[in-house]
């Protein structure tokens, strides 16, 4: 990478099923003031503060609102530079890093918020499908995931028990995370006895819906990052990749787009053996099978070996590579916020500030963000302290 980009502050709300008493502005305000307070920075025009803000937000979740224009003032948008990323929050981190690496900005404040309780997630995701062909047969992101789960588990002989273990692990990890929404103790049997949502995905194997919350972080160029904090976390690699939107054009049992995004990031970061080199991973698993499939795409194991990986215990806390010490998306995160929150969790780990969910001595981490049906868009960010 031409220069280094450091993350100098992170903040997040507690994630809850409904925050009916709060306006979206209040979620945004709390995390914005939190990161500003940590750094002492303010919104400035003279390159002595926040140069630009970038907000990741899906208009459709909050009610079409002209790209969030009525809420820009909270992130200091008045008479200043303000950008929007209408995709997963990890993409906003990627975009902000590019803003800094290009020299356009020195310091960027990032924020993502979502109140899924204000709408119906499956309807929004249905609107995300091709309007002429896929919407007409009612495919949304859940049914797309079910198609992928069926194809993946069938091709590679992944068992329902192996998928259920992901949920059990996530909820157990979430018990150490005071911001997590679902931290109930589950067994494999509990998961497999839960109602079928969309065959083969059961209710307990899907991301809880709705979830409300927000997170924010501040990115800075190397020179300023060192001045702002004693504990910068460096972005060492970035990669994104789009797959086909059409599910029939993809080999759903393999995640080529993620493998490509990961290789782009790893090449930049000099990562050769991800399972050994990373100390933790925060991945975007909206469904249980996805942690196994994404583990393959991220190179933690070979194709079709995701089931064996969870069986090995290597991805548990205390294992070789704990995946989602935070509890991940299966413990309750809003879409869009999820990818940025993956990065926030990695930063807390690399700063040694993750509390009861801390991976001891964590030095390198990888965060993954996802958007689109069945992981169409993939974003991989590698980090180091």
């Amino acid at each position, binding site marked *: 990478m031409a220069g280094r980009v450091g993350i100098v502050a992170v903040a997040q709300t507690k994630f809850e099923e409904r*925050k*009916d*008493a*709060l*306006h*979206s*502005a*209040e979620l945004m*305000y709390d995390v914005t*003031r939190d990161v500003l307070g940590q750094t002492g920075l*303010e*919104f400035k025009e003279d390159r002595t503060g926040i140069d630009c803000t970038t907000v990741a937000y899906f208009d*459709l979740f*909050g*009610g079409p609102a002209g790209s969030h224009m009525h809420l820009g*003032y*909270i992130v*200091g948008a*008045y008479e200043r530079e303000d950008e929007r990323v209408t995709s997963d929050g990890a993409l906003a981190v990627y975009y902000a890093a590019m803003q800094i690496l290009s020299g356009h900005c020195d310091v960027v404040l990032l924020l993502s918020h979502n*109140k899924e*309780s*204000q*709408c*119906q997630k499956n*309807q*929004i995701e249905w*609107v995300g499908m091709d*309007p*002429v062909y896929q*919407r007409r047969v009612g495919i949304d992101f859940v049914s797309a995931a079910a198609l992928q789960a069926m194809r993946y588990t069938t091709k590679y002989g992944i068992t329902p028990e192996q998928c259920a273990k992901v949920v059990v692990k996530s909820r157990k990890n979430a018990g150490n995370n005071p911001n997590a929404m679902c931290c109930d103790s589950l067994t494999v049997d509990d998961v497999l006895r839960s109602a079928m949502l969309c065959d083969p995905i059961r209710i307990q194997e899907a991301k809880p819906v709705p979830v409300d919350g927000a997170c924010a972080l501040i990115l800075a160029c190397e020179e300023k990052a060192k001045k702002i904090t004693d504990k910068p976390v460096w972005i060492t690699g970035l990669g994104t990749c789009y797959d086909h939107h059409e599910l029939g054009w993809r080999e759903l049992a393999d995640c080529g787009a993620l493998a490509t995004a990961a290789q782009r990031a790893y090449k930049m970061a000099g990562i050769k053996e991800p399972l050994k080199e990373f100390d933790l991973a925060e991945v975007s698993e909206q469904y249980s099978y996805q942690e196994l499939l994404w583990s393959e795409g991220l190179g933690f194991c070979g194709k079709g070996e995701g089931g064996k990986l969870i069986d090995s215990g290597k991805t548990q806390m205390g294992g070789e590579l704990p995946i989602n010490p935070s509890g991940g998306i299966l413990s309750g995160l809003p879409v869009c916020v999820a990818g940025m929150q993956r990065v926030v969790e990695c930063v807390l780990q690399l700063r040694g500030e993750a509390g009861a969910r801390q991976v001891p001595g964590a030095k390198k981490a990888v965060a993954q963000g996802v958007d689109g049906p069945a992981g169409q868009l993939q974003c991989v960010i590698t980090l180091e302290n």
Partner: protein
Amino acid sequence: MSTDQKQEQEFIQFRYPRQVPYQHSLGYQSKFANGLKQGRILATKCPVCGRCTIPPRIVCPFHHVKQTEWVDQGQRGRLVSAFKINFPMFDPRTRELQSWETPLVAVELEGGASMDGWCSELDTSKLKTGMLLEAVWRPEEERQGRGDDILHWKPVEE
């Protein structure tokens, strides 16, 4: 495209009357909505510049400090601008095409905040910048805490 090509096939468009339901939490803005129900217009006030804002804002858009003070803006204000829509537009409340006979006005309230609304004077030539207007409310039992709890603004003789 040539006329011949056009005749080869029918070009098709699909219509999706998308109706995704939403519910919006007003949160701290509930104070404003509850004020409307009581026939009061409340604005947030910046502790730095003293500016009053409607819609109420959690932070001053100019100074980014939290606004905790609420100020009653009174029932009267001065006309800043007025216009009438002369061609059919979407009424955002009903999604129906319609033209409004009622002029829209921007009003600077006695308390310093600004807000928009309709005007009872249909002849825009009689609407002059700076003229005094007064809020005319729905009957109390019909108010819902929405912007249209104020039916319109009525010119006041001075």
